[in-house]
C-alpha cells in the first residue's frame, strides 16, 4: 500500500529489562510448544479419519498399509506447511520493516504475480503438467519479478513508496497477461484456478527438497538482518546517523524476502495474509524490536498456516478447503478487528 503511515517501529537502543526479556523468551518457548501441538494435529487429523494407533504405526513402523500412506502424505504436507509458513511470516516481517509500512506483504512486491505468470507460461507454452515441474518456474518467476521491482524501484536508492509502486505496476501488467492466457487456453484455466488459491495438498518429499536450500539460506539471511533493519525502521537519516549501510541492508532484505516468499509460493501457490497478519499480531506484544519480531514470526506463522490447513481439512469433509482460502477467511476478520482497535490518532 502507498499509505504514508508514521513509522510504527523504532528500534530499542537500550536492552529490554531482564524481566521483560525473560517473559519474551518464555513466550517464544510457549509458541514453539504450540507449534509442535499444531504439527502433531496436522499429522493426526484429516479428511480421512485415522485412529491414533494408525498414526503411530505410520510414523514409526511404516509398512505401506493404507494408513501408512495417508500418514506419509500428511507428514510431507506438515513439513511443507512448517517451512512455507515460517518463510511467509519471515518475509512479511522483513518487508514491513524494509518498506516501513505495517501493511506490506509479499504480494505487494509482485512476487505472487510473478510466480503465477511463470506457472501459466509453463503450462501453456512449455507443456509442463506436473506440480513438481511448476516449482522451478514459479520460483524463477518470483525471483525475476523481485529483481525487476528492485531495479525499477531505484535499486540502491529505492524508497519504500517506489518499491510498492513498482510492485503494483508489474503485478497489474502480469495479471493482465495471466487473464489473457486463462481466457484463451482452457488447460491453463483448469490448472490455474486451483493453483492460485494456494494449497498444501500437493506436497511431496521432492517438492520439499527442491525448495529447502532456498528456504534455509533465506531464513539465515533474514534472521541476521534484525539489527540493521531495526536501524532502518527509524528513518533513512537516523539510520545513516547510526552507521547503518542503507543500500546494502535494503538489497539483502529484498533478497531474503524474495527468496523466502518465492520458494514458499513455488511450493504451495500464492498464500496471502500469513505474511501480512502474523508480523502485525506479533508486533502488538513484542513491540517494535525486530530481534524479537523475526523469531516470533518464524514460529507463529506456521501455527496459523498449519492450523488453517487442519481446519480446511475438517470443515469440508470428505473433501477439503484449500489453505489459502482458509487463511484469508480467518485472517480477514482478524485484520479488520486489529484495524478498528487502533486509536484514531494513529490512523
Amino acid at each position, binding site marked *: *500500500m*502507498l*499509505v*504514508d*503511515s508514521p513509522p510504527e517501529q523504532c528500534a530499542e537502543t537500550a536492552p529490554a529489562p531482564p524481566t521483560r526479556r525473560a517473559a519474551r523468551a518464555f513466550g517464544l518457548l510457549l509458541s514453539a510448544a504450540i507449534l509442535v501441538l499444531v504439527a502433531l494435529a496436522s499429522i493426526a487429523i484429516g479428511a480421512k479419519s485415522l485412529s491414533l494407533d494408525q498414526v503411530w504405526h505410520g510414523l514409526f513402523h511404516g509398512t505401506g498399509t493404507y494408513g501408512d500412506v495417508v500418514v506419509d502424505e500428511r507428514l510431507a504436507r506438515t513439513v511443507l506447511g512448517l517451512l512455507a509458513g515460517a518463510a511467509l511470516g519471515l518475509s512479511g516481517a522483513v518487508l514491513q520493516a524494509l518498506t516501513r509500512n505495517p*501493511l506490506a506483504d509479499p504480494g505487494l512486491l509482485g512476487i505472487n504475480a510473478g510466480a503465477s505468470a511463470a506457472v501459466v507460461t509453463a503450462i501453456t507454452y512449455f507443456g509442463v503438467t506436473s506440480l513438481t515441474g511448476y516449482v522451478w518456474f514459479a520460483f524463477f518467476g518470483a525471483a525475476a519479478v523481485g529483481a525487476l521491482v528492485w531495479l*525499477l*524501484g531505484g535499486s540502491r536508492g529505492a*524508497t519504500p*513508496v*517506489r518499491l510498492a*509502486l*513498482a510492485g*503494483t*505496476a*508489474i*503485478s*497489474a*501488467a*502480469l*495479471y*493482465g*497477461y495471466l*487473464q*489473457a492466457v*486463462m*481466457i*484463451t487456453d*482452457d488447460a491453463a*484455466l*483448469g490448472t490455474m*484456478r*486451483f493453483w*492460485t*488459491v494456494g494449497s498444501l495438498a500437493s506436497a511431496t518429499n521432492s517438492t520439499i527438497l527442491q525448495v529447502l536450500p532456498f528456504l534455509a539460506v533465506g531464513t539465515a539471511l533474514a534472521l541476521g538482518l534484525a539489527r540493521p533493519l531495526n536501524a532502518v525502521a527509524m528513518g533513512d537519516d537516523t539510520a545513516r546517523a547510526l552507521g547503518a549501510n542503507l543500500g546494502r541492508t535494503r538489497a539483502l532484505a529484498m533478497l531474503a524476502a524474495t527468496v523466502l516468499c518465492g520458494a514458499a509460493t513455488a511450493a504451495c501457490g500464492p498464500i*496471502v*495474509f500469513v505474511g501480512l497478519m502474523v508480523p502485525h499480531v506479533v508486533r502488538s506484544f513484542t513491540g517494535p524490536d525486530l530481534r524479537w519480531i523475526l523469531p516470533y514470526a518464524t514460529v507463529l506463522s506456521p501455527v496459523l498456516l498449519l492450523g488453517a490447513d487442519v481446519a480446511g481439512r475438517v470443515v469440508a469433509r470428505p473433501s477439503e*478447503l*484449500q489453505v*489459502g*482460502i*482458509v*487463511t*484469508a*477467511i480467518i*485472517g*480477514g*476478520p482478524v*485484520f*479488520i478487528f486489529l*484495524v*478498528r482497535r487502533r486509536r*484514531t490518532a494513529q*490512523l
Partner: protein
Amino acid sequence: MKTRSMNRAVRAPGGLSLRLDLRALIVVALLLVAACAAGVALIGTGDAKIPAADVLRTLAGHGTAYQDFIVNELRLPRVLVGLLVGASLGLGGALFQSVSRNPLGSPDVLGLSQGSTAGALVVIVLMSGSTTQVTVGALIGGLATGLAIYLLAWKQGVHGYRLVLVGIGVSAIATAVNGYLLTKADMVDAARAVVWMTGSLDGRDWDQVWPLLALCAVLVPVVLAGARGLRMTEMGDDVANALGVPVQRVRLVLMVCAVLLVAAATAAAGPVSFVALTAPQLARRLTRSPGPNLVPSLCMGAALLVAADWASQRAFGADQLPVGVVTGVLGGGYLLWLLVTERRAGRI
C-alpha cells in the same frame, strides 16, 4: 499572478461568479474529443469495417439499412456502455482516492470490485444464471461490499487510512471466496467466470445503456455539487470543518455516490481493472491542478476505456480478448512510466 494555476474568474452582474481553470477546461475538451474519436473508430472496427465518415453519416441517420443495423443496433450501444462505464469508473475512482487521501484508494484495492465479482460468481457458479441475473448479482455484491466497508470503517466518522485498511481486509476475504467458487465450478462456468472477472464490453446492448445513463444523470450532478466541499477536506478535517464544510456528511454522500457508480459500472461490464486507479492520476497530471479533478477524471475514464477496447480489437481481432486485459496491461505500463519519469519521492 496565477500564472501556474491558470484560474480565471467569470463574473456577471448580480453577484454571479464562476471560477474556471482554463487548463482544466482545455484538458476536458480534448479528452471529450478523444473519447468521441475513439468511439467512432470503435464503431468502425470489427468483422465488417466501416470508414469513419460513414459511421458519422449513419449516426446522423443517413446510412444504408445495413450500416444502420451494424452501427446503431450492434455497435453504438457497446460504445455507449463503454463510455458510461469508463466515466463512472473514472469519477468513482477520483472520489475514492480523494476521500481516502491515497492514490491507491481505488475500488480494486478497497475490495468493491472483488465484492461485485463475488456476487457475479455466486450467480454464475451456484445458480448458472442468465446474463441479466449475473448483472443483478454483481450489483448486489458491490453494494453490499460498499456498505460493509463503510460500516466496518465507521468509528466516530470515517477516516481515509482506516477506510483503505478495512478495504484491504474485505478485499482479501472476497478474493478467497471467489477463488473457492472458481475451484467449485465446472469448466464451462469457470471459463465464463474468468471472462466476466476480466471485464468485457462484448455483446452489450441498449438494455445496459439506459439504466447506466439514468444513474449517471442523477449522480453526476450530486457529486459535482459536493465537489467544492471535497476540495476543502483535502486540507485535513479540522481545516475543512473550520471553513464550514460538514465533513462527515459530504463524505457520506460522496461515498454513496461513488459506490453506486462503481457497482453499476462493474455490473454492466465486469471489474475492468485499473481504469478507476489510473484515470484520476492521469487527469491530475494533465490539468496540473490540486483537488479531486472530478470532471477531468470522468472524461479520462471514458476516453481510456473506449480507447482500450478499440486497441484490443485492433491488436487481437474482434472479441478475442476482453477490454480488461488491455486496461490491466496499460495500467501497469502507465504506473511504470510514472515511476521512471517521476523521480520526486512523495509526489506519487
